[in-house]
């Protein structure tokens, strides 16, 4: 059965490694923080200027001066730090953040990502996404395999304006975990009960399928 958003977040959380600083985008990526594996110590950075984000505040803890990049009120853990936007992106651009997880509207088989603009329609802007994807060593995209019209978002080439080129290393959808390398998606896991055939049929980009495709363990 295809994963729900929580399932995608749980699967991505398995990628976390001890000692990593991690930037989580808005939406599904934010949920990853709820499923940090036992024994793994990571710190969350938010590009508006905080390191060491904690959980959401209790009602009485809410502070208008303390938000994340999604403009949600947050708290911080012991050992947190605040800094300005130039310092924040120095961390990101300088590759001090080991993992970036973000959503996407389209991903292509050479690792291009489009997630900021639909010409003539949606013009919200890229925020920090272009800096993040151009800089991070590890970028995992959390997304749905297809759009509402049923068209694949796992493509040969992106059709929307790009956010970054050749940067996505891994994609986790409701159906599959795929690595991107050598100009192709490599299927490495499928969602529990989802068939390889379904993934193939919903993937427009070049998909390399090994003999054995294990099910994700969520």
């Amino acid at each position, binding site marked *: 059965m295809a994963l729900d958003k929580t399932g995608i977040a749980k699967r991505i959380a398995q990628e976390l490694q001890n000692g990593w600083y991690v930037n989580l985008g808005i939406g599904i990526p934010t949920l990853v923080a709820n499923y940090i594996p036992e024994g793994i110590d990571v710190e969350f950075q*938010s*590009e*508006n*200027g*905080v390191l060491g984000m904690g*959980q*959401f*505040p*209790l*009602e009485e*803890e*809410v*502070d*208008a*001066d*303390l*938000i*994340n*990049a*999604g*403009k*949600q*009120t*947050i708290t911080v853990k012991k050992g947190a730090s*605040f*800094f*300005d*936007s*130039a310092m*924040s*992106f120095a961390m*990101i*651009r300088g590759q001090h953040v080991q993992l970036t997880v973000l959503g996407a509207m389209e991903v292509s088989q050479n690792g*291009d990502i489009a997630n900021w603009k639909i010409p*003539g329609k949606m*013009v*919200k*802007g*890229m*925020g*920090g*996404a*272009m*800096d993040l994807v*151009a*800089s991070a060593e590890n970028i995992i995209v959390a997304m749905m395999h297809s759009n509402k019209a049923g068209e694949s978002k796992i493509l040969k080439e992106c059709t929307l*304006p*790009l*956010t*970054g*080129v*050749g940067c996505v290393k891994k994609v986790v959808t409701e159906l599959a975990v795929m690595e991107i390398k050598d100009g192709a998606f490599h299927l490495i896991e499928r969602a529990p009960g989802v068939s390889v055939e379904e993934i193939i049929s919903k993937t427009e980009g070049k998909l390399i399928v090994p003999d054995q495709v294990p099910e994700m363990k969520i």
Partner: protein
Amino acid sequence: MNKVVKNVEEALIGIQDGMTLMIGGFGLCGIPENSIAQLVKLNVRDLTCISNNAGVDDFGLGLLLQQKQIKKMISSYVGENAEFERQMLSGELIVDLIPQGSLAERCRAGGAGIPAFFTPAGYGTEVAEGKEVRVFNGKPHILEEALTADYAIVKAWKGDTEGNLVFKATARNFNPMMAMAGKITVAEVEELVPAGTLDPNFIHTPGIFVQRIFQGQKFEKRIEQRTTR
């Protein structure tokens, strides 16, 4: 060197139609509320505003958009504002969208006398159009130029009479870099204290960058996404 002005009216003297303004804040967090209200009152027009966001429909820079005081916005993210989207799609408003890190660094560069720098952000995207590309360490980068403003208007938590500023939590965001990049920098603060009150070890923005400082009359500090557990 005393930088104190009486009030927001005095703080914004000299702002005229057609000027370029930097406005601190991220979303509605750390924005100079009192100065924005005064800009609405002054009804200065044809402004170019450099600000990470454009506020919401009825708060922050959204207030200037409602009055059509802004000719051009230079921002990284402008969601959360329907009037903005309408003006942009209709062509009434010129919008220059810039990656957030490049925006921050371009402001800092403007204040720091660095006319241009290379960054990987935006390479291969429409942001790179018309910009020089150069490969460093095997990775393509684009050349981005510094930004400056006629006035930079920032909001701080505490400030002293010499213009030294201290910010609170994530309300710091773009304020320090913009303070560096204004020909005239105006700081509105929640609390104005005498020189010598703030610890010189822990000044976020040294007073040298601030020309005018005043204590804001009222801070609503609206929250965009009140999220609790």
